[in-house]
Each structure stands twice: as C-alpha cells, then as structure tokens.
C-alpha cells in the first residue's frame, strides 16, 4: 500500500491525501451524527414514551381504582396517536391483566423489521400509583421500526450528501493541484529535456510570483551557473581529450568519472564501460608486493602525488606496463573532490629494461644465466638450504682444451660448440633441474650458468641422495664426450668437473664455494682431465700454495728474482759454440731455487706467462746485444715461447720486434723455440706474427719434435729453421735401434727440406757419436754443458776455440 502510494505522482499523492483527510472528516462527522441520532432518538423516544406511560398510568389510576375497564380502555385508546406504541396493557396489583389495547396494524411486518425486532421492539413499563401506593402496572409494547427507518433514510441521505461532498472535493483538488503543481511540472519537464538534450541554455517560463515562482527563478539561475561550468568543463575535457597520455578522473570514492580518448585507444574500454565503477584494470594475481588501491590513493592524498609502476590489462586482455601519476583534486576549500590519474605506457621502457636485464643476467650465446645471475642464484640457494635442510651441490665445469679447438676451428665453430655443449649439460640434469634455460621469456631457473669462456656452473639443490651429484657429473661427462658434429667437422671434446657440496650446518659463502669448485676442477685437470673431482681440504692447501706461488711470481718480476741461464748448443761439425738455449731460473727468497716445471704451468694458468716471457725475452735481447760485441756477432740465443704466448693477441706484452729494435739486435741472433701445435692453429694472427718475426730474421725451432703430430707438411712449408729432436729419443738411442732409426729419418727429412737438426738431452759420448754419425747438426745436453750463467757461458764461448771436446 505504502509502496504503491510512493510510486504515484506528487499530484496523486496530494489528491489522495487530501481526499483521505476530507473523507475521514466526513466519515467521522457522519458517524458522530449517526451515533448522536441514535442516542438522541433513543433517548427522546424513551423519554417521550416514558412521559406518555407516566401520564397514561396516572390517568388510568382512578379507572383502576374503580376497576372501570371501559374508562381504562378509553384511556388507552388515546394512545393510537403514538405510532410507536403497538399495544398497551394495564395489570392490577396481582399482575392480572385489567385491560389491554392493541393497535391495528396496517402493514405486514417486513422481514427486515422482523430481523431487527431485537433492536426495534421493546417494552415500556410504568407503575400505576394511587395515594403513594402501587396499584397496578402499565406496560407498553413499542415498535421503533418506523423511527429506525426514518433514521436510516436520513443516514442514507447524509451518506449521499457526503459522497457528493467528496466528489466535489476531488474535483476541486484536481483543479487546485493543477494550479499548484503546474510550475513543478514545468520544472520537471525542463529538467527532463535538459537531461535528454544536454542543452543547458534552456530556461523555464515563470508565470507565478509565489514560492514556486521563486524556485523556478532559482532553478534558472542554477542553470546559468551550470551552463557556465559546463562550458568550462567542456574546455577542460577538450584539453584532456587532446592529451596523448591516458587520463582517468575519479571522484573521492574512487568511482571513475572520465577517461580520455587516449585511454580508450590504449585500453579499449570506453567511458560507458567504466563510469561509476571502481575498476582499475589491475592484473589479477600479479606477482610481487603491490600496494593496494587504498594505500596508493592514501599516498596520493597525503603526499600530493603518487608515482608508481604497475601492470594494467586492456579489454583485449593484453597486459601493459604503465607508470601511474595520481594526484588528488581539491576544491577551493581544500576538500577532496577526486583524483586525476595519468597513465604512461612504459612498454618500450620495460622492453629496453628487459633487454638490459637480460643482457646483464644472461649469456647471449647460450641463453644461460651469466656469472652475475649465477652469483645471485647461488646466494639465494645458500640461504634456502637453511630452510630445506638439504645439501647443495655446486659443479664447476671447464671444457678441456677448448681454446685449442676454438683456435683450430674458428670462433664461429667454437660458439656453436659452446651452444651445443650448454644444451647437452642442461639435458643432463635431473628432472627437477631442467630449468636452466629461458622458456617463453620466463626464467625457469638459473641452475646451469655460463660463467664465461668455456666455464659452466651447475647448482644442484635439494640433494636427497648421496650419489645424485655423481650421477649428474658422470652423465655430463658422458654427454660431452659424445662427438659434436659442427658443419662437416666431427669434434671430440671432454670436460673437467670440480664438485663441492655444502650442508645446512655449514656456513659458507658463495664466493668460497665457487673457489672450492674451481680448485676441485683444477684438480681434475691435473689428474688428466675428462673426470670429476670432489673438493677436499687438501686441495685447498695445494691451491693455496699455487696462489702463493702466483703472488710470489708477481713479486719476483718486480724484484728480479728470475734469472736466465744458458745451455750451450754445440755445432757438431765445427765443435764451435755459437748457440745456447735460454732457460729461466727462479731464486725464491725463502724457497730457494724453483724449477721451471714447478712454476711455468702455473704461470700459464694464471696468465703470468706473458709477463714472464716478455721479461725473459728482453733480458736475453739485452744480453745478446752485449755478446754480439764480446763473443761473436753471430751468436744465437734460443728463447722458448709456448703456444699460449704466441697466440696471445696482446701485442703490447709480446712486442719482440720492438725489443730487438730497442737494443739494436738483428733478428738473426734470436731463435724462437716453440711446439708444432702453434702451426695447427687456424688463427692466422699467430702465423702472421711468426712470419713477421722470420721476416725480421728471427729463426724458429720446433721443440719436442717427434712427440706430437710431427706433421711434415709444416716442415715442407718452410715455416721453421730447426727441429729439435726430443730428448726421449736421444736418451734411449743407444739401446733402441728404432729410436736411432727415427732420429736418422728425422735428420734425413729435415736435411732434405733444408732444415737444421738439434738433438736435446745428449748425456753420453755414445749418444753424441751416434747422432754425429747420423748427420745431426747441433747437440745440447749435460755431456756438453749444463745450463750456465751468462758470465760462465761467455767464458765457455771464449774457450770453445780451444775445442770443447778435447778439453
């Protein structure tokens, strides 16, 4: 009922309410009048009848006294005037009927009156007194039907009049409500039209000067203000629409009020989609700890601006990284009205950042995490084992002789090999660890990393089984040992692995762990490569020694602890000594004399060999410059250069020619001794460098000839001047005819190719005689002379005129 009324128009409400009030008033007056009628009629009738009864009783009293029935009857007959009294009876003192009167009933009683008889019929009694003594009773039977009937007719007419009144009220109300509500209707119509058309220039006609007229005027005034503001807004909106950055306006409750076209363009949502909502297009389940909307807007409110980066998803479902600037909008009073958010698409920036990040964290060649990322990962994993209580294994893998292969086959092939090797290593991991490559732009894991060059690391987390790490190591070695097919070349490769394990109860940092793995790997190398070695503390001692040695070597270079000794080389035919092999000695201040075998390989590993080599070279050239004066201008000193030294691209550290120029020593006074692997190198710069030296007159000797490839093609190309027969042949020459045969063959071939032959390690007269007989050109060894100091060599040379052998 109430809701029904609420839905009605004001006019209907007004009319209904007024009608209700009017109707109620009429009803109440009607009811009061009816009740009053009933009461009055009843009372007056009763009174009237009582008076009649009393009078009749009084006048009947003598008749009763005289028992004059006729008189009494006549008396009663007078009652016929009264319509209500249907019968009357007089009873005497004994209650016997003395006389009675019955009105002749003209009409039959209707059903209704019979039905109502309870209400309409009644008795009126009055005592008949005489001299204060009750002598009888007068009883009237009354029938009030006629009274009720007339009352009823009255009521009906009243009801009829009331209805007419109500109807008239309704008509008047309708008219008056039109009059009162007319201006309101005008207002409402105007508002509707303005809403529909958006035309705020409309005004409402004002015809009255009452409160509604005032309201209309105020409304028109408000419209003017709205129109002004609308114009301003439109200007602002047009300005906003021109901005190329997406902009969102929200009210103080964060409901979206506006988005500009740039926003619609980028995110695909129109204003209709978002208006009134608190939707932020945020990405669900976004990783990381992002601030909640409430927190973000609180920061904006309190600090005047919020800046932050986040992800937003477009209608099409595409995620866009954006930067948000949220500023609160306040009115003149400083009250918060809303927020303006400027969103900047930072996809490009993110992409660049991603690339930078990728480059910073990943190896471009293999796609594996690089050293930087590996270190982070290892540090995290080390923290994690405190929780997991499971051991962690770290493998350090170095490909064996990769440099040689790289040099032999070229860098492109080397890179292809590294790529293939990397994927083989990854393929060897346990199921849970096949996580070390980039998949769909997501880093699955960083368990395998390439530290650089041919060094790889493998982190094995959660080692539940003791042998798991051994299994992986064996598998990796086996996989690497399988031939690689690179283009048309079939390449064989091995790896050396160092393993270190750490347990949750240990405290060890990442750097130390890597160092240990490296040491263990070094041990594998030392043990002969293609194997894995687990780190133990004894290796640490060796490594420490090695480190000490390296450190000492640095110092030794500065402090001139190195010494060059010269092992004379005799011309077998002339018995003259005009050649020597320069050999390095290290006089360690505490350790004493250290053998080259004990530190050259370390120096090679540590990269110190170039410095040492350069020092030796300079030292020798300086000496030769003197000896050219003091001994002989044709003196020739052989200097050992390992392939590592010769291959080095670092020109500054191996600037032989400039050293020769510096001391004005011709190239012919210097022989470079190296091994034939130098010539296997496809790196042309090494060959070029040797060619350049030979151009300058420097001669080249192939050391350790016969133990390696013993490639005759290099000899044929005349890249060398000498071959040095390895001492392993020379020392057994007397008891092994085969060795003699080899030596003879080598000498013959060399001579045929125009090369001279030097025999190394000649210790006995017999060896010397056999080599001499075979036609060997030069010999060196303890039989002739041990390595000598510069001064001793000088003396020896001067004596050599007097024939060494006879001396």
């Amino acid at each position, binding site marked *: 009922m109430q809701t029904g009324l609420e839905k009605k128009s004001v006019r209907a409400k007004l009319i209904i309410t007024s009608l209700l009030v009017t109707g109620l008033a009429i009803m109440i007056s009607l009811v009061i009048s009816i009740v009053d009628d009933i009461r009055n009629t009843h009372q007056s009738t009763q009174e009237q009848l009582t008076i009649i009864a009393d009078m009749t009783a009084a006048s009947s009293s003598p008749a009763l006294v005289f028992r004059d029935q006729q*008189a009494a009857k006549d008396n009663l007959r007078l009652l016929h005037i009264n319509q209500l009294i249907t019968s009357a009876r007089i009873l005497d003192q004994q209650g016997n009927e003395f006389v009675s009167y019955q009105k002749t009933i003209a009409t039959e009683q209707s059903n209704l009156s019979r039905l109502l008889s309870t209400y309409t019929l009644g008795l009126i009694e009055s005592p008949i007194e005489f001299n204060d003594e009750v002598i009888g009773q007068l009883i009237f039977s009354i029938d009030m039907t006629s009274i009720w009937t007339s009352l009823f007719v009255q009521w009906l007419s009243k009801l009829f009049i009331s209805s007419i009144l109500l109807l008239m009220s309704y008509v008047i109300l309708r008219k008056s409500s039109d009059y009162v509500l007319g201006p309101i209707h005008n207002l409402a119509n105007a508002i509707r039209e303005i809403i529909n058309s958006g035309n705020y220039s409309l005004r409402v006609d004002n015809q009255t000067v009452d409160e509604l007229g005032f309201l209309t005027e105020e409304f028109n005034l408000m419209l003017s203000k709205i129109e002004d503001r609308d114009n301003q807004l439109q200007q602002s909106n047009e300005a906003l629409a021109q901005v190329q950055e997406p902009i969102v306006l929200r009210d103080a409750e964060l409901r979206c009020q506006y988005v500009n076209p740039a926003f619609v363009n980028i995110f695909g949502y129109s204003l209709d989609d978002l208006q009134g909502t608190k939707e932020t297009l945020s990405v669900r389940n976004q990783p990381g700890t992002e601030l909640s909307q409430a927190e973000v807007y609180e920061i904006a409110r309190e600090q005047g601006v919020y800046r932050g980066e986040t992800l937003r998803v477009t209608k099409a479902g595409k995620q866009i990284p954006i930067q948000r600037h949220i500023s609160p909008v306040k009115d003149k009073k400083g009250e918060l009205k809303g927020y303006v958010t400027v969103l900047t698409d930072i996809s490009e920036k993110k992409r660049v950042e991603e690339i930078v990040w990728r480059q910073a964290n990943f190896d471009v060649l293999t796609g594996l995490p690089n050293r930087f990322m590996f270190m982070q990962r290892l540090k995290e994993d080390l923290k994690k084992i405190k929780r997991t209580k499971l051991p962690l294994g770290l493998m350090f893998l170095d490909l064996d002789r990769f440099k040689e292969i790289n040099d032999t086959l070229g860098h492109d092939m080397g890179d292809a090999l590294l790529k293939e090797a990397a994927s083989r290593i990854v393929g060897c991991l346990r199921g849970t660890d096949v996580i070390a490559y980039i998949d769909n732009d997501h880093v699955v894991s960083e368990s395998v990393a390439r530290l650089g060059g041919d060094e790889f690391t493998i982190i094995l987390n959660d080692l539940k089984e003791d042998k798991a790490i051994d299994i992986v190591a064996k598998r990796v070695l086996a996989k690497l040992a399988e031939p690689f097919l690179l283009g048309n070349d079939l390449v064989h490769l091995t790896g050396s692995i160092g393993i270190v394990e750490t347990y949750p109860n240990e405290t060890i940092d990442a750097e130390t762990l890597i160092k240990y793995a490296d040491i263990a790997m070094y041990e594998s190398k030392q043990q002969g490569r293609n194997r894995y070695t687990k780190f133990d503390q004894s290796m640490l001692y060796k490594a420490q020694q090695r480190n000490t040695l390296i450190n000492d070597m640095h110092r030794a270079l500065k402090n001139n602890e190195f010494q060059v000794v010269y092992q004379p080389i005799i011309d077998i035919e002339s018995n003259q000594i005009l050649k020597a092999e320069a050999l390095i000695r290290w006089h360690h201040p505490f350790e004493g004399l250290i053998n080259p075998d004990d530190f050259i390989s370390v120096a090679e590993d540590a990269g110190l060999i170039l410095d040492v080599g350069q020092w030796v070279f300079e030292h020798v050239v300086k000496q030769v410059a003197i000896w050219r004066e003091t001994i002989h201008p044709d003196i020739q000193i052989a200097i050992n250069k390992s392939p590592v030294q010769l291959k080095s691209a670092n020109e500054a550290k191996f600037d032989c020619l400039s050293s020769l120029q510096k001391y004005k020593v011709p190239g012919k006074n210097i022989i470079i001794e190296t091994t034939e692997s130098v010539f296997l190198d496809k790196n042309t710069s090494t060959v070029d460098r040797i060619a350049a030296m030979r151009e300058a007159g420097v001669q080249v000797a192939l050391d350790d000839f016969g133990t390696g490839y013993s490639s005759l093609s290099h000899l044929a190309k005349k890249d060398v001047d000498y071959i040095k027969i390895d001492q392993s042949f020379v020392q057994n020459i007397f008891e092994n005819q085969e060795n003699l045969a080899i030596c003879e063959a080598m000498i013959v071939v060399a001579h045929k190719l125009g090369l001279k032959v030097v025999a190394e390690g000649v210790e006995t007269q017999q060896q010397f005689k056999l080599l001499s007989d075979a036609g060997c050109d030069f010999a060196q060894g303890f039989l002739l002379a041990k390595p000598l100091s510069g001064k001793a060599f000088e003396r020896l040379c001067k004596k050599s005129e007097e024939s060494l052998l006879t001396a």
Partner: protein
Amino acid sequence: MFATNLLHAATREEAIKAGIVYNLTKFTVWPNSSISENYLNICVFGKQYDDGFDALAGKAVMGKALMIKRNPNNRDIHTCQIAYIKNTSKKKIYKILNKCKSLPILTVSESLDFINHGGMIGLVAFDNHIGFEANIKTINSEGINIGAQLLKLAKRVVGLDKQYI
C-alpha cells in the same frame, strides 16, 4: 382486593356499590374544619342493612378509619362526610338532602337521576356494570372537592360552569 372482601354477605351489586363509595372517599377532599382527625363517617340511609357497607367499617382511608352510621338522627347528621341514600321515594330523598344542605357532606345515591335532583354523585347501572354520575355544581357548593381524575370516570357530569370548560 376489596371487591372480593365485600362479596361475603351482600349481593355482588350491593358490594360493588359500597366499593364505589369507598373508592369515592379516596378521591374526595373535605374542608378541614368539618372533618375529624381520626374518623371518616359514611352515613347510610335506608332500611336494608344487608349490604356491603359493614365490610368497609374500620378500613383506613388517608389515615382515617372508616365509620359506618346507619340512618343517623338529625343531630348527628353534621358528623357525616358521606351520605349514601338507598333507592327510595323522591320525597324521602328530598328530606335527607335538605338535612345535608349547607353541610360538607358528599351525597351519593343509587336513585335514578339523583344528580338532577339536588344530589351530588349518582350511581348508575349500565352495560352490566355500575358507574357513577356527578353534579359538580352541588359538590362544589358545599366546599367539597373531588379529583378531576374522578370526574373522568364519571359517566355523566352536570352542573359545570362555563368557567370550567
């Protein structure tokens, strides 16, 4: 009540006549000077004693006891408040009326047309029962007042002055 009591000795008609007289006493007001404090005397004139009046003796009307006096002599006639004259000759009636003249005595008789012959209340029979007639003039002339209500019962009222109508 009294009707039944009166029936024991007299005839029903006699008893009714006595009852009417008795009832008349109830409606009649006599001048105070002429009436005793304790008694109301009903004087009955006639030879016949076997009537209903003896039954009335001792009854109380308006606080006074009824006394029945039969044929009182001339000296005592002024003590009567009601003189009931039984049916007799006109001559005798006149005689008794003359004795009562100028005395506040309500004269009642069953003789025909009594009220037109100087009497006050006449008893008449009609329609099988007995009623009465009254002569207001003679009643009022002696200072006796009978209630207007009583007059309503009267079958015939004479002697009405125009002033009463």
